């Protein structure tokens, strides 16, 4: 019975944490899928999102206004427009120089320049964060981060604790992914993003403003990951270097789900959360992240295009 309880507890923790990972991965995947940019600064944009949520929460007094239950979620959502603008501007003035229609003249289709640019952005965000926010870890106060719903089974012999902060965070994450999928598949803006992703030249001939599509994409990708960071910020103290702890997980999730597949990235992140938590049932806890990469390598070996990726390259 104890083993079953341990398994259910691990599965529950993995799913809840995985939903947060999934949302982070969706932001990264959107940028890669549409712009073909590997954004090494993505974890650091998430860090800025966490600080944005923290300062929105404290400056607007959301704790007093909405309580420490709902306040952190509203702060996380309000961080999205802030980071959207930051991402939009970063694409407009920096990333656009090495992407889109300009990459024809650049070596390696601009990928080398993109690599250096996003790594540079990452360093600037980290150092800027250190100067602006200092090195003392902070987190968004939440009364739910140590509260749980106790689910009893077998007459109380088996109890599963569902963390309330993580559970509500997972609900918000699923809602955002659903909205994003609807935006991409149903709206005119979404169609322009997909067109820009599939074939830049054809999209241009069809009158689509590809540069605008890229700006929207980068802003959206960064904003979505910022919300994921904001959701985590109530249960996870962070410093300006917190992005480094998540960026590898984001990449693993995106590749697992299938490069360029937005929904696949969410499932990839969710799977990573489950593997990370459930592996502790069989392996020493120190090997939690090793288990993630073992599965990652297995998927790359058996299904290189990822779980929901397409086999053929886009034209």
């Amino acid at each position, binding site marked *: 019975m*104890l083993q079953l*309880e*341990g398994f259910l*507890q*691990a599965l*529950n*923790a993995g799913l809840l*944490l995985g939903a947060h990972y999934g949302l982070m991965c969706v932001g990264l995947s959107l940028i890669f899928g549409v712009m073909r940019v590997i954004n090494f600064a993505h974890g650091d944009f998430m860090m800025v999102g966490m600080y944005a949520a923290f300062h929105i929460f404290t400056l607007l007094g959301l704790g007093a206004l909405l309580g420490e239950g709902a306040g952190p979620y509203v702060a996380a959502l309000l961080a999205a427009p802030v980071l959207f603008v930051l991402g939009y501007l970063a694409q407009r003035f920096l990333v656009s120089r090495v992407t889109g229609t300009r990459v024809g003249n650049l070596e390696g289709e601009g990928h080398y320049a993109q690599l250096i640019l996003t790594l540079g952005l990452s360093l600037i965000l980290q150092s800027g964060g*250190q100067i602006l926010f*200092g*090195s*003392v*870890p*902070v*987190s968004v*106060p939440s009364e739910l*981060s*140590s*509260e*749980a719903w106790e689910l009893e089974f077998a007459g109380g012999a088996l109890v599963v*604790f569902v*963390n309330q902060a993580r559970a509500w965070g997972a609900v918000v994450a699923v809602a955002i992914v659903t909205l994003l999928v609807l935006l991409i598949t149903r709206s005119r803006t979404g169609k322009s993003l997909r067109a820009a992703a599939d074939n830049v030249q054809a999209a241009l001939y069809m009158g689509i403003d590809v540069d605008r599509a890229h700006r929207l994409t980068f802003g959206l990708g960064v904003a979505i990951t910022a919300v994921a960071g904001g959701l985590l910020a109530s*249960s*996870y*103290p*962070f*410093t300006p*270097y917190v992005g480094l*702890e998540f960026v590898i997980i984001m990449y693993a999730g995106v590749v697992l789900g299938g490069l360029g597949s937005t929904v696949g990235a969410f499932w990839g992140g969710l799977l990573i959360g489950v593997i*990370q*938590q459930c592996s*502790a*049932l069989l392996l*020493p*806890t*120190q090997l*939690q*992240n090793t288990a993630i990469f073992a599965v990652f390598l297995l998927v790359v070996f058996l299904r290189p295009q990822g779980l929901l990726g397409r086999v053929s390259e886009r034209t």
Partner: protein
Amino acid sequence: MQGIGVVERGTTRRRLMAGAAAVAGAALAPGSGRAQAPGTVKVGLLVPLSGIYARFGQLMRMGAEIGVRHINEQGGVPSLGGAKLDLHLFDAGDSTEKAKNAAQRMVADHPDLVACSGAYLSSFTLSATEVTERAELPMLTLSYSDLITTRGFRYVFQTSARAGDQAKVTLPIMLDLAEKATGKRPATVAILTDNTASSLSFVQPIREGSAGFGVKIVMDETFTPPLSDATQLIQKVRSSRPEMLIMPITVISDVKLLIEKMNEFGLGRGRVPTIGSGIAMAQSDLLQNIRPAQMEGFITVVGNWDAKGQDKIIEEFKAATGEPWMGQNGIATYGDMWIMRDALEKAGKSDRRAVAEALRTIDITEGAALYYPGRRVKFDANGLRETAGPVVVQWQNNKPLTVYPQDSAMAEITWLKR
């Protein structure tokens, strides 16, 4: 204002060349007191003032500055004609290389320093003392590493108990405290540790010695920090039902995740008495990340802490810094300044060799001794303070209070009866 120094940092080639020459010069003819303003004696504080450890260095700086101010207000060093202490600050940065470079600049640019204190992390202290040892500059430190005073160095003085020694005595001390509070000795213990060097060296003697104390280890888990979720670990604690949990944690995010998860699972607030190591579980930064009520009952073992008889200084520190308590970083550097003053008084001259010799033979139970557990300052042949022992701190009424040793305790330990 006399006694409060400016931060000195930065390296140029010229400085390095001058430094190398001065290190050699200092080794040949150390500390003559030349080039000092009349009536002042230079002392140093080498701590991180930039980078990720800057916060801790600032606390150490605040303690030292208050110490120097008090000493100077109370007449300085009487045997030197009332000479005032002149504190110079050196930024150890955020790496061992930077700490060593800062130490080199310190001895090169200030051949008239008579003693210093530092350098926060044991790894910083180990590298900095390689420089101060060559320059024959006495250095006082709170760092825990066993290596600091087992290398045969003659100019380093460790005021805290070594990590290995702390670990060896922690289990019997905790068993005794539990028995005194509840009338029953815990018979089972769980170990949950991160895999940092200090945490592992803390739990190793407990793993090896538990059977000798009649204690059975019912769970032993090691994890790599930082955690992303603590559910599995606390589920294992819950399943193994220990009477006591040893949980040395060094990363603040892990403290939050583990403590909140323990509270979520109904194991917090002393229901499973939990003992950590070091200041991660008692530093004031925790207040920005976790409700203090959730820390209630948690215990940590440190090298020094706010203690009985220090109320006036603690209140002054809190008023000056806005900190909720003084903690080991502030109290230790405050005390170090007083040890330097007492050593200068005993030496009778502003000379680093004479100060080092005075430190080797000093034996005081008042004044500076008040700021260290064991209430005595006497160093053994290796430079280790003889009466140094662990300080047990427990969260009670929203703040960490010293509960052991008895002569320093500000409260009785609370231990829930099962």
